[in-house]
């Protein structure tokens, strides 16, 4: 039986990164104490480059000195290592496959395209916005299937990897609306997605970890300005 002091957990991250947020939420949900190490992504530390030589990115979880990189890989590692807290994935292999499918969908189809919306303007942005709406429609339909048949439910306090990833994307939707001028989390167009995101933002761990609205708006504006300047150059 491992002693408490053998479970040394450090998380190298950056306060505004949604990928880092995923890991923080998972650690909080599981009740795992950890030390947060803020990284300056413009001036990356030697430690970060040593722990993540391949991607040189955050988040990196250091568990008893061993680094684990890539947020989704970290989430599965956390679930497999700390079996005492609430599970982040269901037990049944088919339900696990469904959860992984939609997590991958949110990550690849929604995240990537939302980033495009943030980094573009004019016609390119309109095109990207259209794609996000199409993907949200697919997610809305997928949720009908997920929520019935007991694969899924939100109980207000626990979250699984799909909840965590969706929350890391749309938890800040109000800041996104303010900066981008588009309402993606629309209760009329996507009632299931909207009620789900709203429920997730009310979970204690999420509320405790959410940066102030003004800070989120500022960072999103900064990312957008920098991207638009870079593409204009």
């Amino acid at each position, binding site marked *: 039986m491992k002693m408490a002091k053998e479970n040394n957990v450090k998380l190298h991250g950056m306060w505004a990164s949604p990928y880092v947020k995923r890991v923080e939420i998972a650690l909080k949900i599981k009740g795992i104490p950890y030390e947060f190490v803020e990284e300056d992504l413009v001036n990356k530390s030697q430690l970060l480059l040593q722990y993540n030589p*391949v991607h040189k990115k955050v988040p990196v979880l250091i568990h008893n000195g061993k680094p684990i990189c*890539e947020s989704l*890989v970290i989430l599965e*590692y956390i679930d*497999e290592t700390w079996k005492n807290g609430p599970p982040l994935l269901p037990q049944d*292999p*088919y339900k696990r*496959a469904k959860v992984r*499918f939609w997590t991958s969908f949110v990550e690849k189809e929604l995240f990537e395209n939302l980033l495009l919306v943030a980094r573009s303007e004019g016609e390119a942005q309109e095109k990207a916005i259209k794609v996000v709406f199409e993907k949200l429609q697919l997610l809305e339909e997928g949720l009908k299937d997920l929520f019935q048949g007991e694969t899924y439910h939100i109980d207000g306090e626990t979250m699984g990897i799909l909840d965590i990833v969706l929350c890391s994307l749309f938890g800040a939707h109000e800041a996104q609306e303010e900066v981008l001028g588009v309402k993606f989390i629309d209760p009329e167009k996507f009632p299931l997605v909207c009620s789900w995101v709203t429920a997730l933002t009310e979970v204690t761990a999420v509320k405790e970890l959410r940066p102030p609205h003004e800070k989120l708006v500022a960072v999103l504006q900064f990312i957008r300005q920098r991207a638009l300047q870079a593409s204009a150059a």
Partner: protein
Amino acid sequence: MAEVKLIGFWASPFSDRVIWALKLKGVNYEYVEEDPYNKTQLLLQHNPVHKKVPVLIHGGKSIPESSIILEYIEETWPQNPLLPQDAYHRAMARFWIKFGEEKMATICSVFKTAGAEQEKAIEEATEQLKIIEEKGLGDKKFFGGGGIGLIDIAFGWLAYLYEVVEEVSAVKVLDAGTFPRLHAWIQNFKEVPVIKESLPNHQKLLEHLKRRREIHLALSNCLD
């Protein structure tokens, strides 16, 4: 035992991965060939979101996306484990499987390019392959250690498909001189009996990819 069906495409490395995993586990399955350029109702029914192969159908339940199928197979048929037991090494495996998937397009970009653009593609492919060889494989016989595992299965396309890509694109990227360890891995991988008997026909692949490259280059020229 519930029935296992695999909807696949003979030339798809994503399809092949699933075949290898099923065979390594000794799972009987029915194979249904799908033409991705002429999609059937069966495929659209079982993968309505992405409409792609492979799709595994187990006892009527559909599982799309090859990496998700591989994890499902590992969890459902635990014999001959393809992932390590401990969480840290499983995390390493998932890291490299993800890396390979993310970099596949870059490594294969020589296929879609010509001239100066292709020169750049060769450089970028070499850079990613170096990372895979040095940090992923290292001095191990297989990516997972002494025996074949999920990482090897996920990188399997490097062992047989890539040489066809190179031939059709008239380039050589993954040469033995630059990548001695990857080359050794390719030989070891192809010698695994299940792999040896399951690889698609080289000539057939060559003709198929020749056609795809022609179409692709023609389209790019139209769009310029």
